[in-house]
């Protein structure tokens, strides 16, 4: 896995070491210079070996986050090579790195992490400028490989990514999904796959904007909407009604209400209920006996995408948040009978991801609100139910490309794909907003 880069560059080290480099150590500490970031490139980043008990694990987790970000290229060094490259640290604590050597191995940035009593001290070196670009101390909870400990490290990765690229990463997030009608929550690097306590057979999980609650629905005779507080694992439930199914709950962007689909003998329509309860559900769509479900809000909360078959085959519609001015969004070919469903509005509000039937199988599409040009992102196996990462660059969805349904993460810029889950039958993913720390 780790290449011995040092062997390849060893002669250079000697050469460089013999030459006086005026650029070295000329940048004063604490000055944010930033690295030049070209959106099309993936700058090389080296994480230096970290001394201390969990140092190797911390380094591996952060390197993997950089890799999964698809915005950075982690340059993996063996511990020995890393130690040599790290060079000497002056008594005052000022890092002295041999920047030209790092430049030769393709690194634009070098991350130097030191364990402290409160957490981690992180310094980002700008190799091109030959100095420290950013410094911060991150609190990290004590504990052996707990979810909180891992999440704190993902938070470090996201901030370092922001230092380098100007865009915060999405490593410190989770994905909720369904397996065997149970809601599971998994870290974005595939760790910590954990079921939530259920009040019944579940579908369609979704997150509140603070990432502290998950809503889902149960189906069958006891169909309910459940809202789980992740801090206590306690669930509140509502929507119990004879002869009805409650489906596809989402939180409004202010986090105060739930919009969901109620399916009865009179059809399926969207309703809104305050999270605090008490009020009678307020009708959002008037489908007149048709099926209207799977709501997804524009981040500003003023508009709503949903799925409706009011004109025949299911299509994605956009309406004002109160249900008025509903207009078909995805009907891009006149007379096209392929259904389109499961809309998810991107975090920047500019596009909507959905699935569309192509040759009998669902595939993942995105469509821009401005030009309404559909873009097909998948073609292998069947691919369903996309959900955006808060970085607006990655989508998670369920795919049968390896036989059984698994969750996969796609970088919509580079088309790089990775498998997130290992257990078959994983589906209906919902990517969390950024997790609030502390």
């Amino acid at each position, binding site marked *: 896995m780790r290449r011995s880069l040092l062997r390849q560059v060893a002669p250079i080290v000697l050469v460089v070491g013999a030459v006086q480099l005026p650029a070295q150590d000329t940048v004063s500490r604490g000055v944010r210079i930033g690295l030049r970031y070209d959106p099309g490139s993936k700058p090389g980043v080296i994480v230096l070996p970290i001394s201390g008990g969990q140092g190797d694990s911390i380094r591996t987790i952060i390197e993997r986050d950089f890799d999964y970000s698809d915005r950075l290229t982690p340059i993996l060094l063996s511990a020995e090579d890393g130690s040599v490259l790290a060079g000497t640290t002056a008594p005052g604590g000022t890092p002295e790195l041999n920047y030209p050597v790092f430049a030769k191995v393709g690194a634009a940035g070098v991350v130097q992490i030191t364990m402290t009593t409160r957490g981690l001290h992180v310094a980002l070196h700008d190799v091109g400028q030959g100095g420290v670009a950013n410094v911060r101390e991150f609190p990290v909870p004590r504990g052996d490989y707990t979810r909180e400990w891992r999440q704190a490290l993902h938070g470090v990765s996201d901030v370092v990514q922001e230092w380098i690229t100007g865009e915060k990463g999405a490593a410190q997030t989770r994905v909720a999904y369904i397996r065997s009608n149970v809601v599971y929550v998994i870290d974005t690097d595939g760790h910590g796959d954990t079921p939530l306590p259920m009040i019944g057979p579940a*579908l369609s999980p979704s997150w509140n904007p603070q990432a502290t609650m998950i809503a889902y629905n149960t189906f069958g005779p006891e169909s309910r909407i459940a809202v789980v507080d992740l801090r206590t694992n306690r669930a509140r439930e509502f929507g119990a009604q004879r*002869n009805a199914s409650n489906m596809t709950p989402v939180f409004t962007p202010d986090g105060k209400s739930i919009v969901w689909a109620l399916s009865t003998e009179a059809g399926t329509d969207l309703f809104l209920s305050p999270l605090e309860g008490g009020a009678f559900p307020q009708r959002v769509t008037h489908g007149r006996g048709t*099926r209207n479900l799977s709501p997804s809000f524009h981040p500003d909360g003023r508009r709503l995408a949903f799925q409706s078959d009011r004109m025949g085959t*299911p299509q994605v519609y956009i309406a004002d948040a109160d249900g008025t001015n509903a207009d078909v969004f995805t009907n891009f070919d006149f007379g096209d009978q392929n259904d389109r*469903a499961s809309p998810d509005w991107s975090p920047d509000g500019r596009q909507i991801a959905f699935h569309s039937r192509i040759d009998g199988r669902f595939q993942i599409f995105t469509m821009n609100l401005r030009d309404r040009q559909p873009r097909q992102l998948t073609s292998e196996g069947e691919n*369903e139910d996309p959900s955006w990462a808060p970085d607006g660059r990655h989508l998670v969805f369920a795919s049968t490309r390896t036989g059984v349904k698994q969750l996969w993460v796609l970088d919509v810029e580079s088309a790089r794909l990775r498998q997130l889950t290992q257990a078959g039958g994983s589906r*209906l993913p919902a990517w969390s907003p950024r997790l609030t720390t502390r």
Partner: protein
Amino acid sequence: MTKTTRVIPLVLALASMGAVGACGGKPAAQAPAPAAAATSVRDTAQERRDREAAMARESAAGAATAAAAARQRFVDDSIADARAAEEAMRRESDMLRATVAAVIGFEFNKADLRDDAKAALDAKIPILLANTSVTVRVSGHADERGSTEYNLALGTERAAIAKRYLVERGVAANRIETTSFGEERPLCTDSADACWAQNRRAEFEITAGGPMLTRPRS
């Protein structure tokens, strides 16, 4: 083994004699007298008295056994008759239950009732009308091809349309509950047309009042 086979005819003979004696109201001890007289001339009076007493005891026991056996036979026969009648009723009830529980199928992405589905519902109606304590849960199901969430709505609608058909023909609406399982409970898991057709269905489950259904009077 041989001992048992020898004893049985004797017991049966005694039992039948005892039963006849008991019916005739004569003293049971007198019946075997001719047999006793023919046995031996050398018997002492005491021996004869003892033998007669023993035989009387045997005979009385035999009569009681015979009466019990007859009673048992009567009971067994009536139980058998009752069981047969019950079995017939149960068979009929099971057939009626099977008719009420018969699954109906649907076309892809549709909730309309096909002709065969209407015929299956028509067969349920008189049974439901004749058994007013019966309540039914109708569960709508879908095949795997549509969107997961859409299929839950489709299942709700399939159950609702089946219910409406029954209610329009006289079955009280509050006796029929509807629910949906979408594509979550397939009967068949191959990705093939025949399998999908099986999964697009409404199931009918008797939830109360159904241990013994009676046939509708025609």
